[in-house]
């Protein structure tokens, strides 16, 4: 080893340590990240819609889509069965999964931002227990009827989720302030209270034996849609919700400094907190109405995205939505293909795959402290 090597080496090592320690300057360009997430979204939807118990050739799939969407009137070179499966069964389900994942990813990023707490997820204010109670009540009473194409179970789940969050918010309010610790504690209390009520209804409600399986399946999460009906309402509502979330990005950024500091930067803190909570609750309620309780997406996806793109919410929120959508589509695809014709509920698969995936990410970036 020459003298210059000795001299060069510590410098090189120091620089290596510098990078590993600081990481931030090595963030990829955000245009690259969004391009990648966009591609991943389109690809995951196309692949997931093609695969299943009756696979459709990718070429046919693209032709069918072009034929249906575009002005091109093409000669039919595909079977009508394929077209029906794709357009009436798979595509609604896959797009439904995408929307659920996007909503939960966005809602998770909102909740983690407003609470400045890495353990926050879309359900932190009791919406899962509220939705569960609503769904179980609707099931055990064997309700019928529909509103805007939604059956009683999704409707009650949505109302339950929203009701639980509003209850938590009103309980946590002290005068004109709503301290985040109060919110979190009230969320835990209301969550376990409503969860117990739900268990009581399951145990004592009418017609339990017959419904236990569907109750259990709902609680484990699974995309349940009847064709396009629900998506016609859900899709625009979720898009509006995500745009509203994006408008809250700057207040959320300022809140990272602390509430008094955000106020000093011109953010109306209490109004911003309420807006974030309401938007997150709406996104969550809409998602669980058609998916049941899908866990983990809203917790893990924002963290994974933050590792790549950084914590600023103008990028984090849309990236979490795109990433959550693609993630849930792929997870749902796995869940319905690996042990076909049986299905693994998507809520189980998210945790089975998402858990280890996230731990790998975490261990590769020791510097990132949750």
């Amino acid at each position: 080893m020459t003298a210059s090597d000795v001299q060069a080496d510590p410098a090189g090592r120091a620089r290596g340590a510098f990078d590993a320690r600081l990481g931030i300057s090595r963030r990829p360009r955000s245009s690259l990240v969004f391009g990648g997430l966009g591609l991943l979204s389109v690809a995951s939807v196309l692949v997931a819609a093609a695969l299943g118990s009756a696979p459709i050739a990718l070429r046919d799939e693209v032709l069918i889509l072009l034929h249906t969407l575009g002005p091109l009137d093409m000669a039919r070179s595909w079977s009508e069965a394929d077209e029906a499966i794709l357009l009436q069964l798979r595509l609604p389900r896959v797009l439904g999964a995408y929307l659920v994942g996007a909503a939960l990813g966005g809602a998770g990023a909102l909740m983690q931002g407003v609470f400045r707490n890495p353990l926050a997820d879309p359900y932190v204010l009791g919406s899962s227990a509220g939705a569960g109670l609503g769904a179980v009540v609707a099931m055990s009473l064997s309700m019928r009827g529909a509103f805007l194409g939604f059956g009683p179970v999704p409707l009650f789940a949505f109302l339950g989720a929203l009701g639980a969050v509003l209850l938590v918010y009103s309980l946590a309010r002290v005068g004109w302030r709503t301290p985040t610790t109060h919110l979190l504690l009230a969320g835990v209390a209301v969550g376990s209270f409503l969860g117990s009520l739900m268990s009581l209804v399951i145990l004592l409600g009418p017609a339990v034996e017959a419904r236990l399986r569907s109750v259990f399946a709902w609680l484990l999460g699974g995309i349940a849609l009847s064709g396009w009906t629900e998506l016609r309402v859900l899709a625009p509502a979720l898009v509006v919700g995500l745009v509203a979330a994006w408008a809250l990005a700057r207040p959320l950024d300022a809140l990272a400094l602390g509430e008094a500091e955000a106020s000093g930067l011109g953010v109306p803190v209490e109004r911003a907190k309420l807006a974030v909570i309401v938007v997150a609750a709406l996104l969550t309620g809409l998602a669980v109405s058609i998916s049941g309780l899908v866990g983990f997406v809203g917790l893990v996806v924002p963290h994974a995205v933050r590792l790549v793109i950084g914590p600023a919410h103008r990028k984090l929120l849309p990236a979490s939505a795109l990433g959550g959508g693609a993630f849930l589509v792929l997870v749902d695809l796995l869940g319905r293909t690996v042990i076909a014709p049986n299905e693994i509920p998507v809520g189980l698969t998210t945790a089975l795959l998402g858990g280890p995936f996230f731990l790998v990410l975490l261990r590769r970036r020791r510097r990132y402290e949750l």
Partner: protein
Amino acid sequence: MSPALEVRDASFKYGERSVLDNATLTVGRGEMVALLGANGAGKTTLLRLASGVSAPFSGEVLLFGRRLGDMRRREVARAVAVMPQDSAIPPGWSVEEVVGLSRTPHIGLLRGESAADRRAVAEALAVTGLDAFVGRGFDSLSGGERQMALVALAIAQETDLLLLDEPTAHLDLRRRADVLDAVQDLNERRGVAVLAAMHDPILAALYFDRIVLLAEGRVLADGPPGETLTEPLLEKVYNARVRVLHDDELGVPLATVLPRRAHLGTGKNATAAGQAAHRRRSESNPHT
């Protein structure tokens, strides 16, 4: 022209405990004013009233001639910047992102940053000597560097009034000067008025035009360092033994607290400086 900040007969209570009692204070445009007082004297509360984080129970606060209560939060944030305490910023934020948060009151909700925003941030980073830290994680900075970044944040907010709450706390001697030099520089270049709660009366004397002494929520004295940093006033404010020294070259009073048992100039309980002086005296005059 109306002053940058006027606090008129402001009172504030936490529950039953009165923290500010008819406090009146004015900070003229371009003026640097230090707020001195014991812990709990109401310095932080006064700053909170001045930034609109809290509202007074009675009395009023005016920013550049306008009643603070009538202004929208964003307008307040464009008029007055508060240097944050070293807040627990979550990991992952880079230095320039944290400093960039200062532009929040200048950017519309769905807008991106303008060239003016980027220039303000770059300028603040340059003034505070932090341009070398661009791309680094805020949580990887040392305590002193973080403090400088928070000064940069307040600078980049581009307001005409700057409020600082113990900006030199936890800093070594050199860093204290760095922070206050950056503030003084801002004051001289852009005429920014400054109101700072300070613990160190020496730094207060060296950097500020005027000193306001607070005791138990009241303004005890208000004037240039030569009139306010006196032994009787400071002993009353801090309820401690205080010695004020004078340096002819600096031309300001330098105040320090004294050990409870200090016998100036004599004995084993004297301060080190006192002992040294005592020794010198006895050596030059061996007959005493």
